């Protein structure tokens, strides 16, 4: 514990230097601005703004990216409450009661509760991250290729299981993403695979053009032609303070959402989306007035917003400690870290303590910055939503092109974004989730390398994947998830995901 505190002091000594503080601040502001834009969530936001960090050293770049991530998450809730448009998928539940509160003239209070909930959840979950990540990293030093193979496969299976729709569709999307990740030079044999003479594809298809295409461009394609732009409710500054009744109604949901969000966040998958859905369901179940949900219940804003932010920190645990991204957003963060020459994993904490602890400390700082900054400036952020959409979306398209091109200075990436945008648009229309594709693209080379190294270790015997205890246990959990996920196909019943989706639809109708 003393060592942890010493390390944290080291982190703060880095995070509070004016240079680092400035980039944490800039990341939060820019992230919020991007998060407020309809359709541009944290995933596309980080991908688009990655080039802006190229001129910085690794610590400042990572701190700025973390700020963008937090800011985009918070910005998403602003759009949900004031426009009933989820800036990102995790804000769907906030839309329901947040917008209902806004229509009752409590928009300011809803924003304040979302901000305070996010702050509490963010701060508490960073403490948990700080305590959990180092021991997990020490444990992960025992991992060899078979354990990594099992862990990566489990990560994909959990993502498929946790996805909102059917597991079969999610598995198909994961397989599609993994196949996309096969493009490029085979690391073991040096063969070019599926590159068709395009030299730039030698390194494979990048996660940034895939993420921007599937999440940024696809959203623009689906919404640019909409006939009626949504209206914005503008809160007054004096309305920002919630009443005593609203504070007391939000205290327990914030606490529960924080714990629930962090625990769900550690599990691979679209953590913050599931966390906000589960938190909403729990709050409605525990509420003395469940009939208020859907009509402006304070707990319906406080719980999901806290859970969603807490899950964000939870998702960093496996990424920082194991080097394994647990969802599409950590996957992009991982790629961003690699661009800056940082390799997250068990050795990061030992070899680059200033970076790891500076990052942790900057998350505390980022939470404070967001709280201090966002409430007074909410009017400024809202004005961005007043820009007519027919003017706004061409600007977003330009930033998509710029962001994708700038990562490698390659127009091939712009073509990849275009193809992924069209694919994402069609898949969205056909009701398929695209998050497993992003994760598949980044995990494919890792899974293949781990499998082939495992086979090299065992003289070609697959038994090594099940006889080593950790690998065997991880694969057994994966097998159970597949069986659980496919059960509704056999029994023709509704599983928990279908029930949650149904509950969400019912609430939205109210």
């Amino acid at each position, binding site marked *: 514990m003393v060592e942890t505190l010493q390390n944290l002091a080291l982190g703060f000594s880095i995070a509070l230097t004016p240079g680092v503080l400035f980039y944490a601040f800039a990341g939060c502001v820019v992230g919020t601005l991007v998060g407020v834009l309809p359709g541009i969530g944290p995933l596309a936001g980080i991908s688009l703004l990655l080039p*802006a960090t190229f001129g910085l050293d690794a610590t400042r770049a990572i701190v700025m990216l973390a700020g963008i991530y937090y800011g985009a998450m918070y910005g998403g809730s602003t759009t949900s409450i004031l426009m009933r448009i989820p800036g990102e998928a995790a804000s769907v539940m906030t839309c329901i009661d947040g917008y209902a509160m806004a229509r009752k003239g409590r928009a300011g209070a809803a924003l304040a509760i979302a901000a305070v909930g996010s702050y509490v959840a963010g701060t508490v979950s960073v403490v948990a991250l700080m305590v959990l990540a180092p021991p997990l990293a020490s444990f992960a030093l025992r991992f060899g290729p078979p354990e990594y193979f099992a862990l990566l496969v489990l990560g994909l299976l959990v993502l498929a299981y946790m996805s909102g729709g059917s597991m079969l569709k999610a598995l198909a999307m994961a397989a599609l993403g993994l196949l996309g990740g096969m493009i490029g030079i085979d690391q073991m044999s040096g063969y070019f695979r599926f590159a068709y003479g395009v030299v730039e594809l030698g390194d494979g298809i990048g996660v940034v053009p895939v993420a921007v295409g599937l999440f940024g461009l696809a959203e623009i394609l689906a919404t640019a032609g909409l006939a009626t732009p949504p209206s914005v409710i503008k809160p007054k500054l004096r309305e920002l303070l919630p009443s005593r009744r609203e504070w007391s109604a939000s205290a327990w949901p914030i606490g529960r959402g924080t714990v629930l969000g962090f625990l769900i966040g550690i599990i691979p998958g679209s953590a913050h989306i599931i966390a906000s859905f589960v938190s909403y369901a729990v709050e409605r179940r525990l509420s003395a007035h469940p009939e208020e949900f859907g009509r402006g219940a304070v707990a319906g804003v406080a719980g999901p917003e806290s859970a969603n932010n807490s899950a964000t920190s939870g998702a960093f645990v496996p990424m920082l400690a194991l080097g394994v991204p647990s969802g599409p957003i950590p996957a992009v963060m991982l790629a961003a870290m690699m661009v800056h020459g940082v390799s997250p994993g068990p050795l990061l904490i030992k070899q680059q303590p200033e970076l790891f602890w500076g990052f942790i400390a900057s998350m505390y700082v980022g939470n404070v910055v967001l709280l201090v900054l966002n409430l007074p400036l909410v009017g400024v952020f809202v004005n961005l939503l007043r820009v007519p959409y*027919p003017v706004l979306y061409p600007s977003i398209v*330009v930033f998509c092109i710029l962001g994708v091109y700038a990562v490698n200075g390659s*127009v091939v990436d712009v073509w990849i974004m275009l193809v992924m945008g069209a694919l994402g648009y069609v898949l969205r229309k056909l009701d398929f989730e695209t998050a497993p594709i992003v994760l598949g693209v980044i995990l494919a080379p890792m899974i293949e390398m781990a499998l082939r190294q495992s086979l090299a270790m065992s003289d070609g015997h697959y038994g090594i994947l099940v006889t080593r205890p950790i690998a065997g246990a991880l694969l057994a959990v994966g097998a159970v998830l597949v069986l659980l996920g496919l059960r509704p196909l056999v029994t023709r019943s509704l599983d928990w995901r279908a029930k949650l989706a149904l509950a969400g639809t019912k609430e939205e109708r109210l």
Partner: protein
Amino acid sequence: MLTTDRVAGAVLALLALVVVWESRKLPLGSLSNPGPAYMPVVLATLLLACGVALVIVGGRAGRLAAVDWSEWRHAVAILAVCAFAAGALERLGYRATITLALAFMLGVVEKRGVVFTVLFALALALGSFLLFDTLLRVVLPRGPLGL
């Protein structure tokens, strides 16, 4: 009945078959010593299985004909702009390409006034170049005459 899941499943299965066909150009290796084609074939088989399963169990999904494609004209126009940008970026340079792309989206697709279109397109193209290339030192392509 033609449902969204069935159509998607059929397309995915077809794609899987194409991958298997294309993988024949690479050494497959053996079960104990996989070659570069091994993993793509395994994954394509998984995709094929998922696609076929979707075709079989996808009868309860929404009807394909019920999917609303009303915004397709905008979608095609935006994709065309992205294709133009990909083709022109390194030939015309960032500023000229983005100015033309924005002018098309605002002036032709959204039918905004000429003065607004020109001013907005120039301001965003030059402003974003100044921010990223000049201030943040992200190298963006120059076209003829260094523009």
